[in-house]
């Protein structure tokens, strides 16, 4: 494998004050790959994404974007090609869809580039194309989520971190969204790390899945099968193995 992974983490540690929230997390996402990040709540999935995106300081470990090391002091990771879509589909509510996208492309240098990016984003999410002058605050949940992803796409990221993109969406809309980002990753070669709760949905598009539990990588699943969930998943998620959690 001569190409470095688009995203690589090795032995990543992070803490919130005195609390250790990530323990020695290692993962990789290759160009054009869609990798799922799953696990029970409070496992640290959001924290892991925020750490990679640079909003949570890594206390130890290595992080590389396309072979370029990212240290605790690397700011402005979006300029290096790291896109991060936090949970909740936040948008500039007072601004139109078009203006939202324009702000997504704020760091682009010319108007032409912005327009080109915008056209491309509309080709990915045609729904947005029909809503350009509409105020973002009046969009539906699904549309806002698309807008949030679209805003990130304006800078043509190499890596895209998505935190629960389908939350709050109806099952059908969620399927469509995940399909869209799957095709996006394949066609544009974007490496994607997607946190999701809907296991079956995400397993049908992901090529690999990392299972995170209590801040650690508890397992890695190759070619996850949405129709056949591994048996020990139940134990990790619902703690049905019983007894008090062991002292950590």
């Amino acid at each position, binding site marked *: 494998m001569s190409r470095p992974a688009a995203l690589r983490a090795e032995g990543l540690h992070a803490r*919130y*004050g*005195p*609390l250790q929230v990530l323990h020695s997390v290692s993962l990789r996402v290759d160009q054009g790959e869609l990798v799922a990040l799953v696990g*029970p*709540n*409070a496992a640290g999935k959001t924290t892991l994404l925020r750490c990679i995106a640079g909003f949570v300081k890594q206390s130890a470990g290595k992080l590389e974007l396309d072979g370029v090391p990212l240290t605790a002091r690397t700011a402005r990771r979006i300029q290096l090609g790291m896109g991060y879509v936090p949970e909740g589909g936040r948008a500039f509510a007072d601004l139109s869809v078009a203006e939202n996208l324009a702000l997504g492309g704020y760091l682009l240098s010319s108007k032409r580039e912005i327009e080109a990016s915008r056209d491309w984003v509309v080709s990915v999410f045609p729904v947005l194309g029909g809503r350009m002058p509409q105020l973002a605050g009046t969009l539906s*949940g699904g549309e806002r989520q698309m807008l949030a992803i679209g805003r990130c796409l304006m800078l043509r990221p190499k890596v895209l971190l998505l935190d*629960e993109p389908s*939350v*709050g969406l109806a*099952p*059908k809309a969620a*399927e*469509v969204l995940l399909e869209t980002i799957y095709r996006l990753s394949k066609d544009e070669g974007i490496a994607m790390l997607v946190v999701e*709760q*809907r*296991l*079956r*949905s*995400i397993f*049908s598009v992901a090529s690999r899945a990392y299972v995170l539990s209590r801040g650690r990588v508890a397992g890695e699943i190759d070619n996850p099968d*949405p*129709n056949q*969930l591994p048996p020990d*998943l*139940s134990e990790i*998620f*619902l*703690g*049905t193995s*019983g*007894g*008090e*959690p*062991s*002292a*950590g």
Partner: protein
Amino acid sequence: MDYVWELGALCAIYVIAAVSLNLLQGTMGVMTIAQAAFLAIGGYSTAILTTRHITTFVPSIFVGVGISAVVAILLAWPVLSLSGFIYTIASFAVMLTVTSLSTSWTSLTNGSYGIPGIPQLSVGGVTLSSTASSAVTYLVLAVLITLGFARITRSHWGIAMRGMRESVAAARSLGKPVVGITFGGYVLSAAAASLAGSLYAAFTGYLDPTVFTVTTAFLLVAMVVIGGRGNVWAVAAGSLVISLLPNLLPLVTPLSASIVGPATQVLYGVILVACLLLRPLGLVPERSLRVRPNVLQGSLSAPRSFSGRVRLLGGATAVRAPDPVGQRDAAQVSAAGADRASESGAAPARHAVAAGKQSAAAPTLAASSDSTMPALKVMSLSKQYGGVRALSDVSFTLETAVITGLLGANGAGKSTLLGIISGFIEPNAGSIELFGKDITHVSPTARARAGVVRTFQELRLFEGLTTLENVVVGVPGVGRIRTGLGLPRSVLRTAADLLEQLDLMRLANTRVQAISYGDRKLVAVARALATGARLLLVDEPFSGLTDREIERLCAIFRSTVSSGATLLLIDHNAQAVTSFVDHLLVMDHGSLIAEGSPEKVTSDPAVIEAYFGRQVEEADG
């Protein structure tokens, strides 16, 4: 020499005004630029009434106080419903209105010509004719008033006020009468300021609209800010210094009279900016209640004279912490409390009780609750936000003295359900019964007093207060006028007991903003337990805790339940919850999808489905 007495009298007036504002701004956290309005009301009341020979001095003070009290209530009304910043602007507008009214209402106030010839202070025939006697009287008054406010700040009432300042929602959740406290504090503050205004009018003998202006109001705010928000004596001292400044400057520097005025203002401005940049909380910090641990420990072992050893947890009947009023009166107290709460329920407060709704009959507090009746019965609760169904037809029962867990993913509706049960959110449909009494439309404050207390996921601790103070606020009776003017030892005992049980005694005198996350969570639980609630709703208790802290927490939960309380633990961390609770509820997308023992529920295919996502649909696009 006369000049010195004059200075003394004026300083005394400033001290009274500043100390009055300190209660409002420092202790209660209401940022208002309208305090000088009360000075104006008091001053003009005295000026008008005495120069027109309608009344003598003392009754004029009462008239001023009366009018100020009414204005205070009007101003206190929006405090809880307006964001702090908008409230400040509004208070600014009010201040300017009062000043401009005193200019425009010429028939009453003589407009910009002012009112001359205001007679000196006279009480019962005795007139203070000399500057010296006035000054001494005023200074004595200033000291007395300062002492009074200091006592209030140190009392249980003051602690409740400070708690409210940090988090109104948390105070409500503990059953504190937030509206009553706000009104009471505001009226007291206004009354003192009004008195200061009356004293000023009598002393200088002349009043016009340029005396009490926006600049005066800001000056008072500056005194509180610079002196030390909340610290009565620091504010008094600070105001003394600041009011002396313009008079000391000419003695120290060779400035001509015409520029002393502006030069002083420049100096004030510079000092204020420096203070805000360097010491935003003032030169002297607020005083916290500090009790030496051995005193606290001592209070635990000292036998009580009338009801034996006080143990909050353990002892089958005394699930509710005895308040100083006594158990017999508990029913009356709660009825009165609920009545007051129903009035507050109609106020434009943040909880969603629609205007005009009657509050339910006050649930009475029998000391021995009927153990065959379920603690909570929730029937067909529904809640919709716009097009989103947050809760669909949720029904379940919580049996008394049982630990129930509620699980669900983000967005499953747990927080909405918690908000509705605790009274912070109004349901669209359905009803709730607490020990058989309908509480569906009861305000969160009344509900808390009836025995439903919740914690918050974001904790909402009273940040500027110590661990001990945080727990003290939870104790019933704290913040209620009935509890008197001090800080009853029984209250301290109750709080100390809880600190002991949760191993927080070592942090009793530490401000909670400085303690670890795990300990903060325990403080939040202790604060809720201090209320003696019969139904405790705990929001996300386990996240972020080490295993040892989880053990400690589970131990105290068990202990609480074994003395008769009911517990509902809401969390999305399934691992911790399933291993601890007796009974389990699972929610998904607003509906209750499973209910039963943990073993049964976690092997329910519907639950597994909810956690892992539905089967990929066969349907086509």
